[in-house]
């Protein structure tokens, strides 16, 4: 394991925070969407856990993570240590890994120009924050849609950054940077969410067709979603993955794990539950 320092902690809620780790020897090369294994000492042992990286691989100053402190049925050991850590504390890390990365080419070797739709449930948004910043910083011309599902408005961890990226898309024009961000709140009736007037329900319902046969996602992008024009990336609880696939299977989308004989697929996912 390599050494680093916790260089920034932003508490968004009692159980949700943004953490930055500055590696002693600088940020190594990695791909947007990968995760990093962090380690902290506990009772003379090192406790490890992997977290998706939210920062862009083009950011060579620090790794950033958005982390939820789940405590039921039992609190996670490393996450509990992180939520009791202070800026300046030393932390160890192992090299970035993971396969939820952006496909730039098709199995045929041709450039993949399909629209990228990212569906993140809760902290499953993290890899797509990395995607969005990287695609922006590398002047990628593909259309990018980031959909974030949360229970409460104060869990929309990167609302400002993603709204800024959408505003930049409006300012520059779609031919330069084509980006859209939408969120869904699954408990709209709760008092915390009283001011929410965006999409209500589970995030995968963006794919559910209305009476006119169009889904909110299709209304957003202005055309029918097909496996030839859209590539989906999904990260979240298994329920989010299953819910998404319930809609996409009917449209003949297949996942990377069940790819066709020619190597083609249109859904890549990673679940954390």
């Amino acid at each position, binding site marked *: 394991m390599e050494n680093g320092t916790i260089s920034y902690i932003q508490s968004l809620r*009692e159980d949700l925070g943004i953490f930055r780790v500055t590696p002693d020897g600088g940020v190594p090369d990695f791909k947007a969407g990968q995760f990093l294994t962090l380690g902290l000492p506990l009772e003379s042992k090192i406790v490890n856990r992997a977290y998706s990286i939210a920062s862009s691989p083009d950011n060579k100053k620090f790794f950033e993570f958005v982390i939820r402190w789940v*405590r*039921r*049925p*039992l*609190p996670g050991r490393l996450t509990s240590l992180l939520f009791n850590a202070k800026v300046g504390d030393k932390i160890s890390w192992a090299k970035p890994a993971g396969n939820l990365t952006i496909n730039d080419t098709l199995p045929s070797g041709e450039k993949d120009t399909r629209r990228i739709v990212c569906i993140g449930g809760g902290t499953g948004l993290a890899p797509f924050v990395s995607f969005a910043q990287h695609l922006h910083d590398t002047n990628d011309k593909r259309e990018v849609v980031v959909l974030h599902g949360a229970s409460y408005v104060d869990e929309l961890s990167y609302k400002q950054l993603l709204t800024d990226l959408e505003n930049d898309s409006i300012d520059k024009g779609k031919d330069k940077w084509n980006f859209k961000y939408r969120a869904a709140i699954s*408990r709209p*009736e*709760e*008092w*915390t969410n*009283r001011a929410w007037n965006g999409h209500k329900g589970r995030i995968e319902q963006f794919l559910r067709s209305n009476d006119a046969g169009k889904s909110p996602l299709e209304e957003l992008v202005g055309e029918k979603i097909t496996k030839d024009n859209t590539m989906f990336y999904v990260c979240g609880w298994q329920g989010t993955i299953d819910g998404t696939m319930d809609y996409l299977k009917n449209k003949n989308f297949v996942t990377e794990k069940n790819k066709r004989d020619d190597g083609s697929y249109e859904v890549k996912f990673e679940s954390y539950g």
Partner: protein
Amino acid sequence: MGMAEEIITEPNYEKLCSNILNCNEHVRFAGFVNDKSQILHSAQKDNLDSLLAENEIGMSIHYTLERWRKAQNFTFRLGKERLTFTEYDNVTLVTIPFKGKLLLVSTEPRIHYDPIIEKINSILTDWEK
């Protein structure tokens, strides 16, 4: 041999609220909420004015549920939460978890609570039999 099927019966919240409201003269209000802040049923003594405005009731339920959720973070060490009291100058709020929902009861303040709690627990236990 097939497995025995568990029959899950939803409580009659209206009847439970009525029984709790009428179990003691000092009880002002009884209601059940789910974990999405939805009031499943509630009842209040006819002759009393509500101490909170409509939007304040939503806020109060939110605070109660937030506290309940956070308290459950210690279940693995302390066991399940059974009862809470908050005594204000003008009212006492009692919460009792019941079948994944939360029973909210308000009473007059500074009274003997034990008989009321015993009666409420008896009503809830009777339903479970």
